[in-house]
C-alpha cells in the first residue's frame, strides 16, 4: 500500500539521468576556457540548487507539521532534510573538485555560494544530533520542526550576508548580462536540473515508503504476536510513526494531552 508510483518514478529518474549524461558527454560543447572539467558543472550546480530548495521545503513541511499536528509532515520534513544533507556533502565534494581543477585550490573563500553552502551544511548537520538527544517522540517532532523552520529561514539570509562579505564575486556561469550560456549548454543544464530533482524526489519517496513499511510491519507483528513480542522503540533520530503499544495503528494521532497545555 505504500510506495505508489515508485516504479514509474524510478524509470523516469533513470531515463532522465541517462539522458543527462548522454547530453553532457556527447552534446554539450566544451567550455572554451575550462575545457573538459567544466562538465562537472552539470552535476555540481543542480545538486547545489536542489539542496537549497530542499532545505526550504523541509522548513515548509515543518511549519505544516506545527500547524496541523500531523506526523506525516514531520516524516516528510525529516526525510527531505536527510536526503538534502547527503546532497549537500555531494555538492561540497564536487565543488571542491571543480575549484581544484579550475582555480588550483581545493577551497576558495571568495566564492560566496560555496562558502554559504558550507555554513548551511554545518547548521543542518546538527539536525540529526538534535533529534537524537530528545527521547519523547512527540517533543522530538515538535522541536525538530522549530529547528527546521529557523534553519530554513537562515538559508537565504546567510547567502545575502556571505555574498556581501566577499571581496570580489566570480563571474557567474549563468550570468545574463554577458549573454549567458550557449543554447546547447543551457538545454543540457535544464535537463540536468530536472534529472537531479527527480533523483531527489525518488530517494525521498523510497525513504518514506521504507519507514512507513517498517512501522506497518511493527504494528502487524504487535497485533499478531502481542505487545511483548515486539521490542520497544529504542532511541532514534528518525520520526516515530506508531502509537502506544495498545493501539497498534499505522500512524496514530497524539494521545493524552497535558491539561496545562492549552491549544494555541
Amino acid at each position, binding site marked *: 500500500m505504500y510506495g505508489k508510483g515508485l516504479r514509474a518514478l524510478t524509470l523516469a529518474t533513470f531515463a532522465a539521468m541517462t539522458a543527462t549524461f548522454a547530453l553532457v558527454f556527447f552534446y554539450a560543447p566544451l567550455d572554451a576556457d575550462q575545457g573538459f572539467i567544466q562538465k562537472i558543472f552539470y552535476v555540481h550546480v543542480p545538486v547545489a540548487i536542489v539542496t537549497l530548495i530542499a532545505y526550504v521545503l523541509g522548513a515548509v513541511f515543518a511549519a505544516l507539521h*506545527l500547524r496541523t499536528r500531523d506526523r506525516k509532515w514531520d516524516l516528510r520534513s525529516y526525510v527531505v532534510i536527510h536526503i538534502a544533507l547527503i546532497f549537500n556533502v555531494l555538492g561540497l565534494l564536487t565543488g571542491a573538485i571543480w575549484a581544484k581543477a579550475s582555480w588550483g585550490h581545493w577551497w576558495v573563500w571568495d566564492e560566496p555560494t560555496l562558502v554559504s553552502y558550507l555554513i548551511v551544511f554545518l*547548521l543542518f548537520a546538527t539536525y540529526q544530533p*538534535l533529534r537524537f538527544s530528545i527521547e519523547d517522540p512527540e517533543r522530538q517532532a515538535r522541536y525538530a520542526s522549530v529547528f527546521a523552520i*529557523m534553519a530554513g*529561514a537562515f538559508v537565504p539570509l*546567510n547567502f545575502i*550576508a556571505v555574498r556581501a562579505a566577499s571581496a570580489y564575486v566570480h563571474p557567474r556561469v549563468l550570468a545574463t548580462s554577458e549573454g549567458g550560456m550557449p543554447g546547447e549548454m543551457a538545454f543540457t543544464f535544464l535537463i540536468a536540473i530536472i534529472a537531479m530533482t527527480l533523483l531527489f524526489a525518488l530517494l525521498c519517496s523510497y525513504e518514506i515508503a521504507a519507514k512507513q513499511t517498517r512501522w506497518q510491519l511493527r504494528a502487524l507483528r504487535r497485533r499478531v504476536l502481542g505487545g511483548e513480542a515486539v521490542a520497544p522503540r529504542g532511541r532514534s533520530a528518525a520520526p516515530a510513526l506508531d502509537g502506544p503499544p495498545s493501539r497498534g495503528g499505522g500512524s496514530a494521532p497524539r494521545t493524552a494531552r497535558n491539561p*496545562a497545555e492549552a491549544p494555541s
Partner: protein
Amino acid sequence: MRPSVALLRKDLLLERRAPESIPAMLLFSITTFVLFHFALGRDQVEGQLAAGVLVVTLLFAAILGINRLFVSEQEEGGFDGVLLAPIDRTALLIAKGAALFLFLTLVEVVAVAAFALLLLGPSPWPALPGLLVILVLLNLALATVGTLVSALAIRTRARDLIVPMVALPLLVPALIGAARGAAPLFAAGGAEALPTKWLAVLALYDLVFGLLAYAVFDFLLED
C-alpha cells in the same frame, strides 16, 4: 507587557542575589583577550583583526550565557509556572531575550574597556559611537537567537553540546555584519565612517529572527 516585566525582574533579581552568568561571561572575555595576545603574538591589534578578536570573544562569551539562560526554569519548575499562569507565552520570550540583552550589555561595558586597555592599538574614543550602534544590533541578534536556541536545547539530553553546535552556525551572518562593520572603526589611522551595508545586514538579521522567534517560540513550551 506586565508579565514580561515581572519575569525580567525575577531574572535580574536572581542574577543580583547569586551572580552567575555575568561574572562568568566577563572573566571568560578577559581571559580570551589574554589568550589572543599570546596566540596572535601581538601586543596591539587594529582594523579587521581587532574587530574580529572583539566580536568572536563576545560571541563565545554569549554562548556561556545562552547555556545558562533557562536553567533555573528547568530545575525549579519555572516552565510550569509560566504555563499555569494566565499569560501569553510570548511574555517569557520577551523577558528572557531582554534579560540576555541586559547581561550582554553589562558584560560589554567592562569587556570593551578591557579590550581597549589590553589589546586595541588606536584610540577607542572616536570609535565609540559607531561601536555602540553595532553592539546594540549584535546584542539584539544574540538575544533573540540565543533565547530560541536555549529554549530548544534546555530539555535535550546534551544541552551544553547542542547550544554551541546550533547557535554558532546560526549566528554566522550576525558575526559577519558585526566584525566587518566594526573593522573601519578600529582602523590604524583613526576611526573611519561606519559602513551602512553591514548595519543593514545586522538589522535584517535582527528583524527576520525576531519575527521568527515570535512565531515559533510557543511551540517550545507545550508540555
